[in-house]
């Protein structure tokens, strides 16, 4: 305990704090870039998965297989697989890129189910009305289904991204300079494990907790039906 108190001034230097701030920024950047791209690609996956017709069966099976497989492989294994695969193909991809790709691959598998759930929550009758008007599948999805599916998709999608912030800790294993990596560095420099990892835990907490509260608030806002939301806006204005 005394050792910790003695280390405090050496630990909480401006240099160290800036390092941690930068690392936290990297953690957030990785998470959101990876999840955003993953989310977009997941949408493509779900759209392809719904392709009608017998000829599309292999495509549909591939989409289903992708999700089922990558939901069952540990993120650490995915990270290593992406790392080794990319390194045998090209020798100068940055570690950050590799991490983002790994996050993407993982996020696609997890968000695909969220998106699919959201799209399927729109009553089939809406799609039938569009079909009867000769609306193409693409236009129906974008102008009728998606706008109604958003409130069901966004909250769990954000909750996933926020919870993924914690999973990025594993990326430290391939040398990306994010929070956990800096933590290990400081620990190796001789600082107390309790002090270092306690602080790192606090950093993650201060990022994750407010964002998760924000996500919950957003979920409540989106749970009200459209007409009520418009009425509220009019009243406020």
């Amino acid at each position, binding site marked *: 305990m005394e*050792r*910790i108190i003695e280390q405090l001034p050496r630990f909480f230097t401006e240099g160290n704090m800036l390092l941690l701030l930068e690392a936290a920024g990297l953690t957030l950047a990785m998470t959101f870039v990876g999840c955003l791209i993953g989310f977009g690609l997941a949408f493509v996956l779900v759209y392809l998965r719904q392709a009608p017709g017998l000829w599309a069966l292999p495509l549909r099976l591939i989409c*289903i297989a992708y999700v*089922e*497989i990558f939901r*069952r*492989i*540990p*993120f*650490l*294994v*995915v990270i*290593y*697989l992406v790392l*080794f*695969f990319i390194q*045998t*193909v090209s020798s100068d991809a940055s570690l950050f890129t590799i991490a983002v790709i790994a996050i993407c691959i993982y996020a696609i598998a997890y968000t695909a189910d969220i998106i699919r759930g959201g799209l399927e929550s729109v009553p089939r009758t809406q799609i039938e009305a569009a079909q009867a008007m000769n609306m193409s599948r693409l236009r129906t999805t974008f102008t009728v289904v998606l706008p109604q599916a958003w409130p069901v998709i966004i909250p769990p999608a954000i909750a996933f991204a926020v919870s993924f912030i*914690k*999973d*990025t*800790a*594993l990326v*430290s*294993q391939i040398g990306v300079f994010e929070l*956990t990596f800096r*933590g*290990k560095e400081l*620990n190796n420099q001789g600082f*107390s*494990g*309790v002090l*270092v*990892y*306690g602080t*790192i*835990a606090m950093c*993650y*907490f201060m990022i*994750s*907790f407010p964002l*998760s509260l924000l996500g919950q608030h957003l979920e409540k806002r989106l749970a009200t039906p459209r007409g009520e939301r418009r009425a509220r806006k009019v009243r406020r204005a």
Partner: protein
Amino acid sequence: MDYRFQYGVVWDNVDALLQGAWLTFQLGVIAFMGGLLIGLVGAAIKSFAPQPFRFLVDAYVVFITNTPALIQIYFLYFGLPEFGIRWSSEACVLIGLILNAGAYLTLILRAGFLSVRKTELEAGVTLGFSVIQQVRYIIVPHIAKSIYPAVANFFIVILVMGTSIGAVIGVDELTGTAINLSTVNYRWLEYFSVIAVMYVVLTFVASIGLALFGRWAFRVKARIF
């Protein structure tokens, strides 16, 4: 791409990998059971206990669910020795996972507790059930059925995500074994692609087992896909 795949090497070491898989499974089961116990206690406290205790449980849950499991395990592995407690890597992973699982299961079970409607309890009271009888005949069967899918799914999460974290501090579960073997003859891609398949198989088997158990014990139609 001129990388030549050599899966023969992997096959030579398949028994090491299988041992790793077995350790993964054992760690998963024990961590899950421990977490389930904590979760039950935590959910019970949140539902029935007075304020200071409820707040403590909340603080525990909020802290654990907003910090990475890896950091929690690092804290045990690198921090405890400063207090003279030197646990093995396996012990640190196990304790860390139990505490981690306990927090998430507290949330899941608490949601289950809340889902029992007051009217069901009132019906029990009017039929003359004592509190214990209410718990046994009304609450438990109802909850078990509604939360089983979430709990079973969480077991898979622990099995897959939780145990692989151990590899980082040298536990010889499946991922750790693959790392060890790869550093010997550099067949990283081969080993890791094989363990990826093993994880998928392992979780499928576990999912099917859990689905069947759920159907038998609680008459829950759990989805495997």
